[in-house]
């Protein structure tokens, strides 16, 4: 089944060419200039949870192109196919319930449909919920666009004991209606034929929905006004009839009003007075215009469904099973307990299962860099290649297995419908801090349970419906305990709080949640001030996810992470390597080290020396190498910056070595422990075994539990890593928030670490 679906074209066979039949019509000529067939553009529209994406994937298979609409962070997905010498481009519009243009998704959907660039619409409806699904389909038909209606999930409707009269449905709506079962790829072949036919035939008349004796006359007047006197305003509405624009004006649609405003003040006034007249009439009978439109459209859809639904024996209701599950999963007490358990299980799975491939990848990169170091002459190029590029890439790529597993699990949560329940359960808490129920997932991914990653976390805010809450979520989730901060926590806890490691980790995780919440509230009351976005959300029925959709979903996001991370990290790791390498140690200092090493080597060459002595000397040489490495780091740009910073970080108890490590941590938090290792002359491969570093920190008089705690807090809160910053730029659409994240978070980290240092001292005196 799957490989058939991957290439739907192959299902047509050689002698079936549905494209030929309609080329003699007017629209057929439109797509056949000079005998050259050009591409067909088909918009795929539908409500969220209607199986729209499944149908899109089924049609286009692997031939997809994912990008962004210009200026907004709404994902733009296109699938390109070649069939019978013609290109067919499917554009997956964001799922929406109407064309009201309030959210960026709806705005994109309605602007795309109005632009007249799409030849036809493939509308995907949930057959089990046809009445409501048709609401948007009817609007698209009112705009006059040729439409193929895929009645998806027909199997569910059959299970409920019903069937549909497709001929009747097609006639009533002026569409070509067909049954499909997206998850089983049923109905693709017919869908394909219908799409080609509809797109190349003459466009049908726009659908005329009656809006009742009160609104119909006013609609006619408004339409006439626009059409006859201000055709300029109508230009923004592409091929849509004037009645559609009139309807949008009555509904107070911002795009429509903007178009009229541009046509002139007089047009604006006359349109306004007509709308006010409508509102006054409605209110006289204690109703509102919006309600009349909604009710009339709804009644129209209900009548259509009534005329098309072939009632069998009623076997089961649509939500029967989901209601039973929700009695437990969305229960007011149990629901919360289960959600925490699900999240806990999820992260254990990610960390536990992901640890193996992560280790393999790390050793593979270590091996590669080791081989290169041995094979290539020592020097600039080798150092750049191994310490700069391979180590940097290894740092990012070793996280890929974790990310893949994480995204697969999230795809399962989304596809089953449980994600909507999580938003429902968590909303009260998140709303209190100025966030939104849908913030829960980005927080969790970013490290709400220790071990996540802020990069996919920021990316997960993309689907949030509310702009202010989205920004607040995006800017505060880097405080979470991501996987790369864990080694620092483990090192410091193991060194200064032996026996209490678990408590320290718990403290860190709790502190990160608390601070993220408080900061979110702070941002929402200051720079991100604004009323909260309403939560009115459908909770879809629970469904079994298909392997195919989970894989496509999971892969898309992994690929996005990978592409971003590699593109950004490569230059950044080179930059970091350079700042930690240059300027090189001056020749006379190198000479000092070399002389001493030379002395040891000479001693080793003396005949009659015992193996023990040789080992001892070799150890001294190794120590000397590491000391040289540490001296080189101190002499480098980063080292000097660290030394210079020491005066500012002294109140927190950080020495220059810690400062250098923190600078490295801005590139990637993984670099903190290894840089600290280098600075303490232990070599950078300290990550494998942090026992020597731990011993040294214990002996170093500048370190104590207070410093450890303040460093923990600092690492938790300070500037997000480079890749996160780049993703913040991408998702927020502005460098402003990147600069804000760096400065604000670092200032916050400084303040918090200072408070921790002072309170620890105060606490010590008290005891």
């Amino acid at each position, binding site marked *: 089944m799957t490989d058939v679906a991957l290439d739907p074209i192959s299902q047509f066979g050689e002698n079936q060419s549905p494209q030929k039949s309609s080329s003699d019509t007017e629209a057929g000529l439109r797509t056949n200039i000079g005998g050259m067939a050009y591409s067909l553009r088909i918009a795929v529209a539908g409500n969220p949870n209607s199986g729209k994406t499944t149908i899109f994937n089924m049609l286009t298979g692997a031939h997809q192109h994912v990008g962004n609409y210009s200026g907004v962070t709404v994902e733009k997905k296109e699938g390109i196919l070649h069939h019978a010498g013609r290109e067919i481009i499917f554009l997956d519009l964001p799922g929406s*319930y*109407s064309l*009201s243009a*309030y959210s960026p998704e709806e705005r994109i959907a309605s602007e795309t449909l109005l632009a007249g660039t799409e030849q036809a619409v493939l509308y995907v409806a949930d057959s*089990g*919920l046809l*009445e*409501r699904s048709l*609401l948007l389909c009817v609007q698209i038909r009112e705009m006059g666009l040729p439409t193929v209606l895929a009645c998806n999930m027909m199997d569910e409707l059959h299970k409920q004991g019903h069937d549909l009269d497709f001929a009747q449905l097609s006639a009533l709506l002026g569409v070509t209606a067909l049954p499909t079962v997206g998850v089983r790829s049923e109905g693709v072949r017919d869908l394909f034929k219908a799409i080609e036919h509809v797109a190349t035939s003459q466009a049908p008349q726009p659908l005329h929905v009656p809006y009742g004796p009160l609104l119909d006359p006013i609609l006619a007047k408004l339409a006439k006004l626009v059409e006859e006197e201000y055709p300029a305003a109508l230009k923004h509405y592409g091929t849509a009839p004037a009645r559609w624009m009139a309807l949008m004006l009555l*509904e*107070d649609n911002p795009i429509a009003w903007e178009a009229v405003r541009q046509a002139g003040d007089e047009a604006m006034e006359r349109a306004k007075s007509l709308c006010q007249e409508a509102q006054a009439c409605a*209110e006289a009978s*204690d*109703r*509102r215009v*919006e*309600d009349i439109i*909604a*009710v009339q459209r*709804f009644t129209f859809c209900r009548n259509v469904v009534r005329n098309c639904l072939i009632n069998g024996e009623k076997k089961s*209701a*649509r*939500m029967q099973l*989901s*209601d039973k599950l*929700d*009695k437990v999963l*969305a*229960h*007011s*007490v149990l*629901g*919360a307990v289960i959600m925490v358990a699900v999240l806990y299980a999820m992260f254990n799975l990610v960390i536990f299962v992901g640890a193996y491939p992560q280790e393999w990848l790390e050793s593979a990169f270590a091996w590669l860099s080791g081989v290169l170091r041995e094979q290539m002459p020592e020097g600039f190029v080798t150092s750049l290649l191994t310490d700069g590029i391979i180590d940097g890439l290894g740092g990012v790529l070793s996280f890929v297995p974790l990310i893949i597993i994480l995204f697969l699990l999230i795809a399962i949560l989304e596809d089953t419908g449980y994600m*909507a329940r999580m*938003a*429902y*359960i968590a*909303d*009260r*808490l998140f*709303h209190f801090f100025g966030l939104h*129920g849908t913030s829960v997932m980005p927080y969790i991914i970013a490290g709400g349970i220790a071990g996540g990653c802020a990069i996919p976390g920021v990316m997960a805010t993309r689907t949030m419906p509310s702009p202010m809450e989205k920004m607040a979520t995006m800017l505060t989730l880097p405080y979470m305990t991501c996987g790369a901060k864990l080694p620092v926590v483990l090192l410091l806890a193991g060194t200064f709080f032996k026996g209490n490691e678990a408590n320290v980790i718990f403290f860190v995780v709790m502190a990160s949640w608390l601070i993220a919440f408080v900061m979110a509230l702070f941002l929402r009351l200051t720079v991100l001030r604004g009323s909260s976005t*309403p*939560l*009115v*959300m*459908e*909770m879809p*029925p629970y469904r079994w996810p298909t392997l195919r959709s989970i894989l496509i979903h999971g892969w898309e996001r992994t690929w996005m992470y990978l592409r971003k991370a590699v593109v950004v990290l490569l230059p950044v790791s080179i930059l970091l390597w350079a700042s930690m390498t240059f300027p090189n140690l001056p020749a006379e200092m190198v000479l000092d080290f070399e002389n001493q090493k030379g002395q040891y080597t000479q001693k080793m060459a003396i005949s009659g020396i015992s193996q023990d002595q040789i080992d001892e000397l070799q150890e001294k040489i190794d120590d000397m190498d590491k000391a040289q490495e540490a001296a080189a780091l101190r002499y480098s740009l980063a080292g000097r910056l660290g030394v210079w910073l020491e005066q500012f970080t002294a109140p927190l108890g950080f020495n220059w070595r810690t400062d250098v490590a923190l600078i490295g941590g801005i590139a990637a938090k993984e670099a903190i422990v290894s840089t600290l290792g280098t600075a303490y002359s232990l070599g950078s491969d300290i990550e494998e075994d942090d026992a020597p570093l731990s011993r040294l920190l214990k002996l170093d008089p500048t370190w104590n539990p207070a410093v450890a705690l303040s460093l923990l807090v600092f690492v938790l809160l300070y500037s997000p890593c480079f890749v996160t910053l780049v993703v913040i730029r991408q998702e927020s659409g502005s460098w402003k928030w990147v600069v804000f994240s760096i400065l604000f978070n670092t200032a916050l980290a400084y303040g918090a670490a200072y408070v921790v240092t002072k309170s620890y001292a105060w606490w010590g005196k008290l005891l």
Partner: protein
Amino acid sequence: MAISRGIALTSLQKGEKAQILQITSHGELGRRIRDLGLIPGVSISLLGRAPLGDPLALRVADTTVAIRKREAQAIFIKR
């Protein structure tokens, strides 16, 4: 205007059925509410409440809709 306003949706008890009389919010929120099938004349029932008592889960036609109490205050019903 307020002759047939009815009672606020938030006063509905768990499991109770009702009919929507009027929705007083307009603009974006009003549109969102209506988009999900919450319009005058429609029968609804309260399925339950989330932990901490908010949001509410409603049965609207054959769907489950979650809505915050704050937003539900604009919806008036009759039992």
